[in-house]
């Protein structure tokens, strides 16, 4: 005998429909969560080094002593190039300039710093580097060290360089690794941008790192 106060049981098709809807909802939420929380795909190659990037002390093109650690709290883009570099350096610096402009538009350019260590310490005086960098952005900083200082730092950052005799009017050339290294605000090497990386992509990665 049925109790008059008891709710009538749902019919079997209705229960199946409820369960199916529940499963569909779980899958739907999972799918949305996967999209929302999918790992950010960096444009540069990612590093996960447990050790902070090697600190160094060099002289900047204003003649002041500069350490990498002076820029803790900012993203640092670190590049090894030289003032007489005919093509690779200007092309790379143009992309970094574009990334800097994107950050400027967002009012965040003070959260990043571009540093170029010269791989031609023999010829690159402060004036020469200042003149070269001024073609791109006045915020860019050039760093100068002795042959041995630069060699040691370059080795640690995976950079090779060597002189190449040339018939060019500019004298010898310096072959060098053309990657740009990103050091995060905590001082860890996080990304390597290959030669040819686009300014927008560099800016996107910088902004992601600043925001996370």
């Amino acid at each position: 005998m049925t109790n008059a106060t008891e709710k009538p049981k749902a019919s079997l098709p209705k229960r199946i429909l409820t369960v199916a809807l529940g499963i569909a909802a779980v899958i739907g939420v999972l799918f949305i969560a996967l999209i929302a929380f999918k790992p950010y795909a960096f444009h540069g190659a990612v590093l996960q080094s447990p050790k902070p990037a090697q600190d160094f002390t060099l002289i900047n093109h204003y003649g002041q002593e500069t350490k990498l650690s002076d820029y803790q709290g900012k993203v640092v883009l670190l590049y090894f190039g030289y003032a007489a570099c005919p093509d690779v350096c200007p092309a790379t610096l143009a992309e970094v300039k574009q990334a800097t402009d994107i950050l400027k538009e967002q009012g965040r350019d003070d959260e990043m710093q571009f540093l170029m260590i010269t791989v031609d310490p023999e010829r690159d005086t402060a004036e020469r580097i200042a003149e070269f960098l001024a073609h791109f952005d006045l915020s860019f900083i050039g760093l100068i060290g002795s042959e041995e200082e630069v060699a040691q730092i370059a080795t640690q950052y995976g950079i090779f360089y060597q002189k190449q005799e040339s018939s060019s009017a500019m004298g010898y050339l310096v072959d060098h690794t053309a990657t740009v290294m990103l050091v995060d605000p905590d001082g860890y090497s996080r990304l390597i941008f290959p030669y040819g990386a686009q300014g927008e992509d560099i800016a996107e990665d910088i902004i992601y790192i600043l925001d996370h």
Partner: protein
Amino acid sequence: MSEKKTFKFSWLHLFYAFIALVVVSVVSFAVFQPVKVLPRISLAPGYAFLNQNNESRTSEDYRGKLTLYNFTYANCDGDCPDTTEKMQEIRGEIEKSAPAGIDYALVTVTLDPERDTPEKLGLFAAPYLSTDNSTVSWDFITGAPLRVRYMVGGGFNLFYERDPSEESEGQASSDQESDYEIKFFPLFVLVDGWGIIRAEYPTANLTVEEVLDDINYLTVEINNSEGAAGLAYEAAHLFRCYP
């Protein structure tokens, strides 16, 4: 008479199911590692040295290749932990069993650049390369002593020094200068095509299987670096995080 409990669906159940599913998925992914990746340990050092044929070899020459490094010196004998024979064995196995479509290279770095000229390294390398028809390149490299120290000590974190106990005593100073041994621990390092150290093996008894397994993980990752599969690999790296 006990009342029979009936399950009543509510949105709270759905929420709990979702949370449980997420937790189980994340834990399973971390524990069972359906996608296995090698850590991106640190940057391999940059360098510009000479090989056993007196040809220039720079770190850029190995960009785009999976490169295995070992460290030794031509006078290494007796108790010295020479790993060059192991490199030869690994080379043969890479040739036979490693996935196709990827370039591989071996590099042996001298820890004794004062004595190991390219010519001397040529003699040292000859027995290993004499029956050579391998497609896996193998360079024995040397450079200015200080630059080798930057590369090996600073870049690969391998400590090495002249063994004072093995230096000759009571001989002419020129002999002392040329008769010594180098103290070091055996080490192999696997570097990817980006110039990133992906595995370090601080042992003389490295098994070929271990290296080949790691090479396989890397090649699978390289071949799945785009699209949804690439995201799965990036997620797998999150579980191997360090700092």
